[in-house]
């Protein structure tokens, strides 16, 4: 490109060439991703406090021992598990239903498709604000409806029975559109003749879906499910803003708990333990994901 460089043919073609490209992003990720991650794991072995984050004493597995006998940890793990599985199940089902509903052309399809994507496109903080207002106990629209149909006033976000369910509603609104888009793309590979033939043979809609449609969209559904699972483990803002993890920890997933322990209790060491557990969970899902993908690409290669 520059005059001097262009006089050196193959300057970048030697064995160092790839590293010239890999190094800048690798160094950057090393500094801002992997080093902090290592620090986080190290912190879990110390008694570091937020009030003096650079000074902490090594205390071995003390934090782990303390946390493993703390019921709050198991509560938080349970919430994380339920939230992740629930989000995958509800989000993917809703997304697939949306995709099947608007797959074939109809009047107003582009508009319907656009509106169905709103929940995915609205920034999380803005979404949290409007849902907080709709969930408002005294004047929110959901309680207007609940009262009108005789259910009475519901404490959507402040009762342990309802809070997680309410969070699920917002989560599904947010992730289902993405699943829908992924599945819609996959549905284009389903041969319409095959569906038609099954219908002529007298198969009902559900059988057609199971026998003809689903095998074609299964890889897409799998990818979507894994992404939704990953996002559920990562999701912080929505829960933090809607319930802050409450009431009584009923919506406190690991990441919400982590931030609370770090920035409200000032216990960075303990937060580190939550981080380590979160890391293991995230890596597990990531590994499953990776293995499935490897298997699929091998299968594609050998076909």
């Amino acid at each position, binding site marked *: 490109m520059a005059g001097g460089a262009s006089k050196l043919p193959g300057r970048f073609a030697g064995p160092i060439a790839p590293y010239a490209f890999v190094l800048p*992003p690798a160094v*950057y*990720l090393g500094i801002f991703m992997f080093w902090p991650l290592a620090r986080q794991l190290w912190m879990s072995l110390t008694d570091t406090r937020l009030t003096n984050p650079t000074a902490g004493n090594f205390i071995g597995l003390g934090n782990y021992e303390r946390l493993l006998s703390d019921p709050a940890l198991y509560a938080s793990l349970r919430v994380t598990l339920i939230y992740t599985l629930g989000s995958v199940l509800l989000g993917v089902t809703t997304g697939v239903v949306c995709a099947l509903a608007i797959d074939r052309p109809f009047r107003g399809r582009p508009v319907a498709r656009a509106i169905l994507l709103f929940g995915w496109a609205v920034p999380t903080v803005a979404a949290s604000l*409007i849902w907080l207002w709709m969930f408002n106990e005294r*004047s929110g629209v959901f309680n207007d409806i609940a009262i009108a149909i005789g259910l009475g006033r519901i404490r959507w976000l402040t009762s342990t029975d309802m809070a997680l369910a309410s969070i699920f509603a917002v989560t599904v609104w947010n992730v289902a559109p993405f699943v829908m888009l992924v599945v819609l793309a996959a549905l284009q590979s389903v041969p319409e003749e095959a569906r038609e033939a099954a219908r002529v043979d007298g198969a009902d809609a559900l059988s057609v879906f199971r026998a003809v449609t689903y095998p074609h969209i299964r890889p897409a559904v799998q990818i979507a499910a894994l992404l939704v699972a990953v996002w559920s483990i990562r999701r912080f803002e929505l829960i933090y803003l809607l319930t802050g993890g409450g009431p009584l920890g009923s919506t406190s997933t690991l990441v919400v708990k982590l931030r609370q322990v770090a920035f409200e209790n000032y216990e960075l060491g303990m937060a580190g333990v939550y981080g380590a557990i979160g890391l293991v969970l*995230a890596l597990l899902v990531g590994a499953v994901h990776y293995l499935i993908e490897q298997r699929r690409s091998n299968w594609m290669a050998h076909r």
Partner: protein
Amino acid sequence: MVMGVLRYILIITLVVMAGFPVYWMATTALSTNAELFSTGQVRWPQLQNLPALIGELSKIPIGRWLFNSGVIAAGTTIVSLVLGSLMGYALSRFRFRGRGIAGFLLFMTQVLPEALIVVPLYAMFITMGLLNNLGGLVLANAGFSLPVSAFILKSAMDAIPYEIEESAAIDNCPRFGILTMIVLPLIMPSVAAAGVISFFAGWNEFLFATTFLLDRSLWPTSVGLASFIGQYETPLSTVMGAALIFSIPAIAFFLLVQRKIVAGLTAGAVKG
């Protein structure tokens, strides 16, 4: 026939459920406090309240917040695209020692929760003087957009025949020049998709921003909006109006490039 009607009912139900929160945001923004909290919220947007809403919006620093959001988003996009295209190019074009590990680590960064590194980054930023600094926030954000950008760009580059680059190499064009002048222009749609994803990741980001930016004048819109929660001095209609302004660019761009974004995100998930 019955199926057709049922399908329409299903579609209408889904569309109403998906669209209602945004409709309600607009309706709330155009209501008065009295309607919202005592006489009952009007069910349709009262456009005659628009001038009053605009007057109220000028009392909060929404312009400043949107500007900060824009700076953070643009910075995140630049860092993520520059480093992501280097990484994507290396993964697409070279076989080198450590390629497998690089791909795997890059893949794994996508599953890391932000919350996991927020504490160490906070400690690190104190010592580096990056706390309370938009640049520091950009550097923290871009780490999470970079892998997505890298995978999107890599899969786009995989589709470009290598011969095009070979002819350029014969003309003594260095590899870096080949990337910026030949490869990237050929995959502009994917660059745009990666850019939009990075931009709105930065635009929407909240956790890092609320942790690292202590100075109110540096707040982006996400942090400013969240500061209204549990605070009653600002009318709710103003808050919703600001939330709507904050959402419109995101909605518009996501709708515009939806297909590319999905292809990109799943490509990132697929290619290890």
